[in-house]
């Protein structure tokens, strides 16, 4: 009798759970996995040279560059999360920042403890000046170069004139696609010469 009661109770629980578990509804189709983000693994240079004698376009990779590319690819962690990648890439920056902070702190303490000699005032002024200029450079992004499109701006004209154009290029690993794709950041220009 006791067993019967237990079986009935278990059956009722299973039936009741059908509603909350949506057991009568077919399993949803697995949603497509989100597209993997492209990853920059190496920064290198690219020169586009128009060659009237060639019949096929060629992407020439020097052996030294190929070695560097192989090394960069060897370092790619296939399933690294965004957080892991961020942590991995910023370790050196964090350490550099910590040591810079320590440097300025210790320099300040040293100057404060070593009296008010003339030379020390000059050093203090130099340190404060360097800190101010550094802070201004960070705030105004003064250490950043011109955007990549700047170098490629004159590409169409250079190609038409048979001249070489040189600029930086990021090598990306994209999850899909056939062959290499060279994307040149060319801005449309207004009739007055301004970029859109």
């Amino acid at each position: 009798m006791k067993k019967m009661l237990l079986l009935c109770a278990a059956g009722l629980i299973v039936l009741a759970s059908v509603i909350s578990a949506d057991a009568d509804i077919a399993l949803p189709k697995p949603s497509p996995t989100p597209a993997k983000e492209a990853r920059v693994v190496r920064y290198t240079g690219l020169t586009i040279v128009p060659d009237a004698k060639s019949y096929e376009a060629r992407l020439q990779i020097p052996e030294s560059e190929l070695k560097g590319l192989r090394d960069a690819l060897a370092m790619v962690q296939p399933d690294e999360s965004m957080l892991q990648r961020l942590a991995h890439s910023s370790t050196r920056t964090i350490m550099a920042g910590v040591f810079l902070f320590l440097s300025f702190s210790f320099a300040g303490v040293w100057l404060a403890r070593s009296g008010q000699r003339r030379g020390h005032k000059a050093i203090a002024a130099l340190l404060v000046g360097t800190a101010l200029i550094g802070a201004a450079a960070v705030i105004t992004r003064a250490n950043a170069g011109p955007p990549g499109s700047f170098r490629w701006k004159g590409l169409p004209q250079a190609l038409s004139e048979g001249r070489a154009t040189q600029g930086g290029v990021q090598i990306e690993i994209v999850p899909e696609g056939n062959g290499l794709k060279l994307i040149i950041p060319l801005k449309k220009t207004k009739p007055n010469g301004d970029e859109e």
Partner: protein
Amino acid sequence: MERTANIDLVRLSPERALPATRVSARLFAAALFSVAILSAVLAGWIPFQFSLVTVFLFAGPHNWFELRYFLMRLPRRLGRSRNFFVVAFAGIALLTAAYLSLPLLFYSRIWSGANWPLAIAVWNTLLLLWLATLVWLRGKQHARRNWGWAWPLAFALAALNWITPEMFSLAIVYAHPLVALWFLDRHLSRTRPAWLSTYRRCLLLVPILIAGIIWQLSGTASLADDNGLAWRVTQHAGAELLPNVSSHLLVSLHVFLEMLHYGVWLIALPLIGARGTLWNVKTIPVARHSQGFPKIVGAVLLAGLSVVVLLWVGFSTNYAATRDLYFAIAIAHVLAEAPFLLRMI
């Protein structure tokens, strides 16, 4: 009671320091000029061959001369300098062991290649902190010295090191040969103060020759590094880190600086500093004293000579492998220069 540690070694009057002058100031300056110019010409003309020959001939002997020089400057009793020397020798031992273990970890696949810059950055940071400690300890020995700047400077350099560890290591490779010139400057100020102005005028030749090498070779094609030995030589000079700079220029510059380094230890310092035969241990204070250690000093020098001969045998049989081994172990002499140079400042 004798306080050896408080007495600056060989801080004697010029007349008393070296009664028998072997060379004149002019001859000394002429030797410096000749070595510098000949080195620059050969380094620019045949950098690869010159690098191989100089390392083969002078790498081992210059280390032996450095060892002998450091033994000369070692106080018999440490006294107040005990902490300084304990930190110095512990640092040399630990940093050398760590430096040697890095490639072992890499080749045994314990350490991934991706972590290589991190490992280099950690080692460089430890080196800087050790140097700062030595400077701080040395500064504390004199009440008038305020060498607290060592810490902010070390931290600033550490920050630079973490931004680009490989370049920082390369900077050490290029800066180390110049330390020998500083040694010579300090040595002259103690033993030949009258020559100091002549020597410092001669030093002006170094940046001129460096500028000349850069000017002449910046546009030259890179050296072919299609074999293991050539690759080692160009890598040592930083060809991989500076791909846009001609490896001909880099190797030439590095060999030129190395030759200056060898010239100081093998020619200049023995010429002006020798007070007897090189194998006479009685010229070394720590061996000469009645409570000294002549047998230990003699054994150390003899062992050093054996290593020099072994290096020559090694270079003759397998140059590339011996070169790798030498430049790994030679970090010890680079480190040893720091405390002994600080003792002379």
